[in-house]
């Protein structure tokens, strides 16, 4: 989806480099209007993105406070005592990694099946459109469906049981499972694109050496599409880190990370918060009413997301070095 302007074609118009006589000033009025509208739209995009970045950077610098990064949040009416957002920061990292750890293997498996096997064709098309459906499902619906699933008695080990027999159904595992569905279509898309870019003769060369199809996939294709998988994963991480609805519904809404039990899995069964839910709760829309902290947390969140997007660009550039696949 964000592979927008990749593969830039050199030099403009449909008459080659720049046709000397064809300048907009000689065009009919309607055409000129369209031409200028296109310029306005393009510049407006840059202006909007620029002002968002500058505004967040200014606000982030204004409320800059490294202490916030290392303090746990506490509930207090006095905002100066309410602590920072160490726990939300850890929560974001933990949730993102868990979600991607689920989504990446699944996504790669689905992409490999779709491009390398894809039979019966009807099923492949159904799965393909199914991925689109998953990508289009609102995250709040995924969240509320996840609640339905994880409140099931069978899945009680993944969260914890409240008094009575009710299963709480909210935990890092529950949130990560649903978050993985957000990352999944991106991983599938990027991996498929990379697999499709590998020409047939690479596969044929491998078969000619006596490799089976499975060995070809494992030893030849998967190493070649590693940058594609990386791109999809990084995009997915960005999307997961930025999602709020699932966190609010499925992570339990405790500001501090609370362990679900005392054993090793306690952390994963526990509840917590992430940067997104922290921003939401501290904005005027939530109960927190601490816009300064919301600004700084949002700035940190934006940095994380922008960094992940830079990673995508870097990985995509690395892909060009694998020249043997052309």
């Amino acid at each position: 989806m964000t592979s927008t302007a990749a593969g830039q074609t050199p030099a403009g118009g449909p008459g080659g480099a720049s046709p000397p006589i064809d300048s907009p000033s000689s065009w009919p009025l309607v055409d000129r209007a369209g031409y200028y509208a296109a310029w306005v739209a393009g510049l407006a995009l840059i202006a909007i993105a620029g002002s968002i970045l500058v505004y967040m950077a200014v606000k982030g610098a204004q409320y800059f406070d490294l202490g916030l990064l290392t303090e746990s949040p506490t509930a207090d009416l006095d905002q100066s005592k309410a602590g920072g957002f160490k726990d939300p920061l850890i929560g974001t990292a933990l949730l993102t990694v868990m979600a991607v750890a689920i989504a990446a293997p699944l996504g790669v498996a689905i992409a490999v099946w779709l491009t390398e096997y894809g039979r019966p064709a009807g099923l492949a098309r159904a799965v393909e459109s199914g991925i689109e459906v998953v990508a289009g499902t609102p995250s709040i619906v995924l969240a509320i469906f996840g609640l339905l699933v994880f409140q099931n008695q069978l899945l009680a080990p993944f969260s914890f049981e409240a008094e009575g027999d009710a299963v709480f159904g909210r935990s890092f595992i529950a949130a990560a499972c649903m978050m993985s569905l957000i990352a999944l279509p991106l991983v599938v898309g990027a991996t498929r694109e990379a697999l499709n870019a590998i020409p047939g003769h690479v596969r044929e060369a491998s078969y000619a050496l006596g490799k089976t199809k499975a060995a070809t996939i494992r030893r030849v294709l998967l190493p070649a599409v590693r940058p594609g998988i990386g791109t999809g994963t990084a995009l997915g991480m960005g999307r997961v880190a930025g999602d709020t609805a699932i966190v609010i519904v499925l992570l339990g809404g405790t500001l501090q990370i609370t362990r679900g039990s005392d054993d090793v899995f306690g952390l994963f069964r526990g509840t917590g918060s992430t940067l997104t839910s922290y921003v939401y709760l501290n904005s005027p829309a939530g109960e927190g009413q601490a816009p300064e902290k919301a600004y700084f947390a949002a700035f940190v969140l934006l940095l994380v997301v922008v960094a992940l997007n830079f990673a995508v660009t870097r990985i995509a550039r690395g892909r060009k070095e694998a020249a043997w696949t052309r």
Partner: protein
Amino acid sequence: MLGAVACLVLVLIAGMVIFVFAKAWPSFAHNGLSWFTSGADVDLQLEDILNSPANPSEYVYKLNAWPLLWGTFVVTAGAVAIGIVFSLFAAIFIVEFAPPRLNHVLEPVVRLLAAVPSVIYGLIGILVIVPWVGEHLISLERKESVIQVVQLDGACIMVGIAVLTVMITPIMIAIVVDALRAVPRSWMEGAAALGANRWRVMWTVAVRTARPAVIAAAVLATARALGEAIMLSMVAGSASFAPNPIDGITFLFEPTRPLASALVENVEGISVVPFGQTLYAFAAILLISSVFLSLAGYVAKQPLRKYGVRP
């Protein structure tokens, strides 16, 4: 084996539709078609449902969800209508008219706009745009003219539409740009050779060839806009009010609350049985419309395959 993994996706979707609808059924069944009509204040009705007695036979379900549906429709339609025009021109600019140096900026810009989390859009909206609109764009007379019905404080459908447009344009631009790039060069050169100028070539040949992509972009962006909960609950006023187009310009300044926002704001009460079922009814409406939109987008994208584009 891999096929089995792939089929999990289908199982998941089927499970999602079945479970959510099963859970939502009581709310639809008790209200019948009046679920979709307008009636008493939705917020009060939701409160009644939340406070309904613990005895299952006395559960309250009465709900007329029209204001929520109408709010969803107005905001989504507004954002998609503005967004499709805007992103079409922006895509033409990126593909044809932007100087190469500007294009190096535009690529990360579109990516960035797509990547900014909705809560940040919401934060900027509620802390910057909403107060500004409330102070400068809405005059006192306008506020007083509707004071009996609704309070205008700047959080309104106009801000919601504006921010939502910014959120969904990157998706549309990405799809349209890919399609415009895939239009066979020779067609455009042919048009240019016949004397059409660069704008005519883009508008009459490239855009027309890429029409399926424009439709697919609009449909997929609609699916995204429908599900936007957090940002809209922050900037669109979050009052279950059905803005009335008869009010003229005031209409734009009236608050609303789309389905998805109503869901996210009321989710604490989900353990109360009838209230939870009502929330699942909201989710069911969202789910079924997004499934249909996604499938429609998938179908609309198919003709593009002809030109070798794989969106």
